């Protein structure tokens, strides 16, 4: 039993089921991120936790009490919305204390709570303004203040950073993380941005098509994606996925795929269980940072393979230089150190950290190794 249990929960609109048997258990103090592309059902799930959408079947429990049919205000939750949903006709102060007022908290206590939250979020000077007079970042803080002041069991965040510009988004991200560390509250956070998911969460639920594709720590999700969807959705640039054949050489399974000129490369797998796939096609997943120049290869790795291929485009990005090429008939991106000497059209020798390579079943797209 967790702090927040989502137990075999589904959601249908009429005959259409949009969430399929979701099972997630969140421990107290956890920061769970629901991530996925738009329409994956993550916001619906969040709204069901909040009580804004009815649960079709299954149960949602907070602190072991069943929340099905309980009014949102009775769940002791707070929510921060994408648009912040600040009441335009009220001042910042009134916005923050509205929930307390609705719950019948006496005025002096409301004032006190408001001051504390305002201090915590450094918005004391804004209390008498209307939301219309605030900048995006300030609104964001007010929206969080409104959630914090309630001292809820669970915080729900619905894409809270997506309306901010890039720089502010990074700042606020850090801010939220700090806040979580300081207050230790339980948070469920919805985003479509995998970087937010990775940086903020203690656990991530990757969702697509109404299914939870994978639930795990950021590390698990990144290193051992359950399927091609998770693999390509998490990480930037996305994981390269190319068709390859499994060949046995000295009993060890190797990946065989074509280079730019049609000649074949043969790289050894670390995972011996792939021997069972001999002669069959698989999909090979290689993260860009595991495809580097030879000097930049991970020293700790026990399985670095080399191959030579022609560079199509180079994209210096300051800290790194991205190189694209053709592998297995696909565009593949490699991530080099910024000082790697590469240019377009050059035939270059790459190092592939095969220890980190992932293989997928082309039929089911599920991970078969590691």
């Amino acid at each position: 039993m967790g702090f927040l249990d989502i137990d075999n929960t589904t959601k249908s609109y009429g005959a259409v089921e949009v969430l399929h048997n979701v099972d997630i258990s969140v421990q107290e103090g956890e920061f769970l991120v629901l991530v996925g592309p738009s329409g994956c059902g993550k916001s619906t799930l969040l709204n069901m936790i909040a009580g804004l959408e009815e649960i079709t079947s299954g149960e949602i429990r907070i602190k072991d009490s069943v929340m099905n049919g309980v009014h949102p205000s009775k769940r002791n939750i707070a929510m921060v919305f994408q648009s912040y949903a600040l009441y335009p006709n009220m001042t910042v102060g009134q916005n923050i204390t509205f929930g307390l007022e609705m719950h019948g908290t006496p005025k002096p206590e409301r004032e006190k709570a408001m001051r504390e939250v305002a201090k915590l979020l450094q918005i004391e000077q804004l209390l008498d303004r209307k939301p219309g007079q605030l900048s995006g970042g300030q609104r964001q803080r007010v929206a969080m203040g409104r959630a914090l002041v309630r001292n809820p069991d669970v915080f729900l965040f619905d894409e809270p950073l997506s309306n901010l510009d890039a720089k502010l988004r990074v700042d606020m991200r850090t801010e939220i993380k700090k806040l979580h560390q300081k207050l230790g509250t339980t948070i469920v956070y919805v985003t479509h941005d995998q970087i937010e998911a990775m940086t903020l969460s203690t656990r991530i639920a990757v969702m697509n098509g109404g299914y939870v594709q994978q639930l795990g720590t950021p590390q698990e999700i990144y290193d051992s994606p359950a399927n091609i969807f998770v693999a390509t959705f998490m990480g930037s640039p996305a994981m390269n996925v190319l068709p390859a054949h499994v060949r046995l050489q000295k009993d060890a399974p190797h990946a065989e795929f074509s280079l730019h000129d049609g000649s074949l490369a043969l790289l050894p797998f670390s995972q011996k269980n792939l021997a069972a796939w001999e002669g069959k096609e698989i999909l090979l997943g290689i993260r860009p940072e595991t495809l580097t120049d030879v000097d930049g290869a991970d020293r700790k790795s026990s399985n670095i393979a080399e191959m030579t291929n022609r560079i199509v485009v180079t994209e210096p990005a300051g800290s790194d230089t991205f190189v694209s090429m053709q592998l297995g008939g696909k565009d593949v991106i490699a991530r080099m150190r910024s000082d790697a000497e590469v240019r377009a059209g050059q035939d270059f020798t790459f190092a592939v950290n095969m220890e980190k390579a992932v293989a997928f079943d082309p039929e089911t797209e599920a991970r078969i190794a590691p």
Partner: protein
Amino acid sequence: MSVASQDTAIRTGRITRTLIYVVLILFALFYMLPLYVMLVNSVKPLSEITGGGMMNLPEEFTLEPWFKAWSSAQIGVEPTGLAPYFWNSIKMVVPAVAVSTVLGALNGYVLTKWRFKYDTILFGLMLFACFIPFQIVLIPMARMLGLMGLAGTTWGLALVHVVYGIGFTTLYFRNYYAVFPTELIRAAQIDGAGFFQIFWRILLPSSGPIAVVSIIWQFTNIWNDFLFGASFAGADSQPMTVALNNLVQASHGVKEYNVHFAGAILAATPTLLVYIVAGRYFVRGLMAGSVKG
């Protein structure tokens, strides 16, 4: 919801602009014409009017017709002028406008923020109801009012106006609330606000522009209504339009056109005031809701 910038970004040349001004002013004259006729003739002695020259300025200026229309013209048996009927109208219009606007707002709120099965069909039915010709409802309505014991009362009359006004007020508020962010409603729900608290505290304070549209529309329609007023009012609750009609349509006898025009303007004063005072917000309100579909 944010109101877009005021004027268009389009630029026009000097000659075009002059032309535009000319056209605009010509139309202004066209619109002012009947009011001019009424005003000018309401301050002339009757002899000057019957002598012809409707467009001429008065040779002899008099406010007599105005006083007469207000306080001593023959409306019924007693020469009461329009004054008592003015208050009858106010007593009917104010509750009717208030109730129909509030109901329209609540309906719009439910239809956009508390959707349920078949709500669109209900709304369609309400909207279609706006188009019913009033002449056909007179007899059955009279019977209903009689059954409810409201025949011949101000309340009965107000009820009739509410009934046939909510279609439009609901339309206005629904279109307006349709673009009101639903997240605000959800936030308030989580904050613990109930149905009515959300309405009063969150929605209504932001409904100014559309409330203006709804009030203007209802106020003008109800104030200017004659058919219902004549048919359903009691002897002591006849509205202004019925009195004005009695003044203007007096069957046999001398027609005091100057008094008629003065009375007509007096009867129209409240609606004119509403348009002049609230007209500024009218376009804004239309913009915020009703023409956005």
